[in-house]
């Protein structure tokens, strides 16, 4: 079992530091907690190393800052996570788009 919380994740510093309020993690919307938990869980399951994701997140944040995007921390996190999954061939972009559409149109409602 991986230690939870892992210090490698909880204590990230700099631009990738997790948003906190009075020391506690802040998830403004449910999906932010889900994407955080999904990423951590998959790193535990050895789908990827945490530092691989962290590098992707650093790159994503740097890109967004450069482009002056107003995106939130977890929006950037989501992009970094998607990129990592598609790069590794774990998720197919088209399948993701299709599945998103199914949720949008209410044809599917099976998670959180």
């Amino acid at each position, binding site marked *: 079992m991986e230690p*939870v919380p892992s210090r490698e994740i*909880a204590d990230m510093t700099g631009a990738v530091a997790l948003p906190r309020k009075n020391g506690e993690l802040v998830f403004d919307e449910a*999906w932010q907690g889900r994407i955080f*938990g*999904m990423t951590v*869980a998959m790193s*535990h*399951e050895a789908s990827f190393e945490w530092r691989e994701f962290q590098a992707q997140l650093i790159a994503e944040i740097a890109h967004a800052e450069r482009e002056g995007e107003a995106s939130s921390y977890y*929006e950037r996190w989501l992009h970094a996570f998607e990129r990592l999954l598609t790069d590794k061939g774990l998720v197919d972009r088209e399948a993701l788009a299709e599945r998103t559409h199914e949720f949008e149109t209410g044809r599917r409602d099976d998670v959180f």
Partner: protein
Amino acid sequence: MSGAHGEHGHHHREPESVLSLRVRALESLLVEKKLVASEAIDRIVSAYEEDIGPHNGAKVVARAWVDPAYKQRLLTDGTAAIEELGFGGVDLQVVENKAGVHNLVVCTLCSCYPHALIGLPPVWYKSFEYRSRAVREPRVVLREFGVDLPESVEIRIWDSSAELRYLVLPERPAGTEGLSEAQLAELVSRDAMIGVALVRPPAAAAR
């Protein structure tokens, strides 16, 4: 994120954000491929929300031990000094243990506590017993925690409030000259930063 859960799956409310839909689609796909389990996500989110531990505070203490100039800034303006290390959101005064002086933190009114630095307060910190006895008979309370101080040591009590939190800067134990800052941080416990424990050198800590 309390309350946020109930809003999902009810599409007659305001339209769900594109991002939320995307995350649900991802979770659905990953669960289907057995790459992740929804229960594992639940467990992780609650664990991270509830427990940040004392690690930030320990880093502050270790820095003060190895960097005298930082220590000076920390004791002069705790709030600004912890911001240097990326910790904030709390007005902080740091009180230093030294020869002849031991500090103890309590919140007599409720349970004010520097969460940002040392995580969630232990149950005893919030107890009426600790809150009242720490002020009335601190020496006895400390002895019960295993800290037996000579009569000559002055005990200073710091009563936290919503406006100002306190953190004890414990004495650096002897025999730790060769340790790195990170190794020193590992010696620093939550209790030592409340003032109900001393920091032990590594050999003693391992026992």
